[in-house]
């Protein structure tokens, strides 16, 4: 049974909902701000932050503020509900959820720990109730009308792509009728300081694939797709999920191999599963974080796979920041819309190609393009490299 995409939902620094994300990109408006304004941190670093407090997010989701959900869960609920409504999912069918996150409820845990470190009888327990990743999925299932199999994946920055991949398997094997698959991550002081300690945060807006790139900007958000079997779905689906692959770079705990081995293998295998040759790819939504290491390795992998015929490609992280576990979900949703509506997204802040590779990303937003096949890349710590292939 083939797998089709029938719903999309996005929350990012560009705003709540698919529409506000597309409008921002059409207008070339980035969601990156000079420093966090909601997140409590002393770091003055650019971030892709959704400018809404947790209380405002509770109200937006129509959930009482006293339920005290973590930010990751709130972002996830809002995006997953949009995707489900978009798919017009029938509540009488089996609706599953494969969600992913890298920080879980860390946004609340941080507040708890400040008190707990002074006195281990202090700190409100309701702030750690949602610490683990599974708690986020469980809250999402509760507030999104999920009635069948539910799981949670965490493979760092490739998490949501792996969630979409496993979601597709659940459809292929008839475990569920619909699956909501993707990821959610809120900004947290934990991750911001973590990436700062790795010295891979740019103090300016990130410049993916540019010669002068100096690191990534962290972002937050959630992106979910609704997948169904093609035999059970209405004929007006967005596109097909024709291929997917998860491969490991097996090179280093955090760095990517110079030749982008894992990235190359993931893209090649996903295309093979889709029965497509590299020349049939119309657009690549690159992982493109803006770090020296990722963008070089990904460029090297592009050249290995596509030779001289590199398709149009761009990183949308100049708009959203790197949303970690959510990135693969948000970018999968952008990729789905690219196939369905012919969108090509710009790569912000690019001026000069990396000398060694000479690759020039797509720089303008355009629509009505003839897009038959889009590759969405997500790579992460632990060598995890995943690629998804969406076709018409």
């Amino acid at each position, binding site marked *: 049974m083939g797998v089709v995409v029938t719903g999309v939902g996005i929350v990012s620094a560009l705003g709540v909902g698919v529409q506000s994300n597309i409008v921002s990109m059409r207008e070339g408006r980035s969601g990156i701000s000079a420093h966090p304004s909601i997140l409590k941190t002393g770091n003055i670093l650019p971030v892709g932050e959704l400018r809404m407090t947790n209380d405002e997010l509770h109200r937006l989701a129509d959930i009482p503020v006293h339920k005290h959900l973590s930010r990751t869960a709130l972002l996830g609920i809002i995006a997953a509900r949009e995707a489900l409504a978009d798919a017009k999912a029938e509540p009488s069918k089996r609706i599953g959820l494969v969600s992913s996150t890298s920080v879980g409820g860390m946004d609340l845990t941080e507040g708890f720990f400040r008190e707990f470190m002074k006195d281990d009888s202090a700190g409100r327990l309701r702030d750690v109730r949602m610490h683990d990743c599974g708690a986020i999925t469980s809250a999402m299932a509760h507030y999104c009308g999920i009635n069948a199999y539910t799981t949670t994946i965490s493979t760092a920055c490739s998490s949501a792509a792996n969630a979409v991949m496993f979601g597709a398997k659940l459809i292929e094997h008839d475990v569920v009728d619909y699956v909501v698959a993707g990821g959610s991550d809120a900004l947290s002081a934990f991750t911001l300081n973590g990436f700062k*300690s*790795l*010295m891979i945060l740019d103090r300016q807006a990130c410049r993916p694939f540019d010669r002068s790139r100096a690191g990534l900007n962290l972002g937050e958000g959630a992106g979910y797709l609704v997948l169904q079997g093609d035999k059970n779905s209405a004929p007006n689906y967005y596109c097909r999920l024709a291929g997917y692959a998860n491969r490991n770079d097996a090179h280093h705990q*955090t760095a990517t191999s110079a030749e982008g081995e894992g990235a190359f293998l993931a893209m090649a295998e996903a295309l093979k599963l889709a029965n497509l040759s590299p020349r049939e790819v119309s657009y690549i939504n690159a992982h493109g974080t803006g770090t*020296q290491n990722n963008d070089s390795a990904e460029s090297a992998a592009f050249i290995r796979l596509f030779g001289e015929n590199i398709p149009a490609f761009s990183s949308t992280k100049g708009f959203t920041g790197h949303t970690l576990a959510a990135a693969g979900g948000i970018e999968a949703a952008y990729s789905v819309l690219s196939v369905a509506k012919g969108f090509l997204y710009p790569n912000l802040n690019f001026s000069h190609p990396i000398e060694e590779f000479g690759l020039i990303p797509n720089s303008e937003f355009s629509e009505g393009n003839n897009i038959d096949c889009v590759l969405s890349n997500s790579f992460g710590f632990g060598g995890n490299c995943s690629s998804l292939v969406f076709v018409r």
Partner: protein
Amino acid sequence: MEQLIGELKEHLIEELNLEEITPEDIDSEAPLFRDGLGLDSIDALEIILILEKYYGIKLSNSAEAKPIFYSVKTLAEYIMKNRK
């Protein structure tokens, strides 16, 4: 200089968790990375922290650090010149 080299080796062993290595095992002139002591890019970040924490020296990225981090000796020489 000799004292600084000894002190640096202690810091490296402590901060990089080189649990099975003693200061005597580290050749001051041998490369720290790859073929020498076998350190990697995560260790480079840790050494940047050692410089800042113990010697008040700030390096903003690991690329600039490459020649300085060649060996314990080059590291010590850099610290002598730049410590605050």
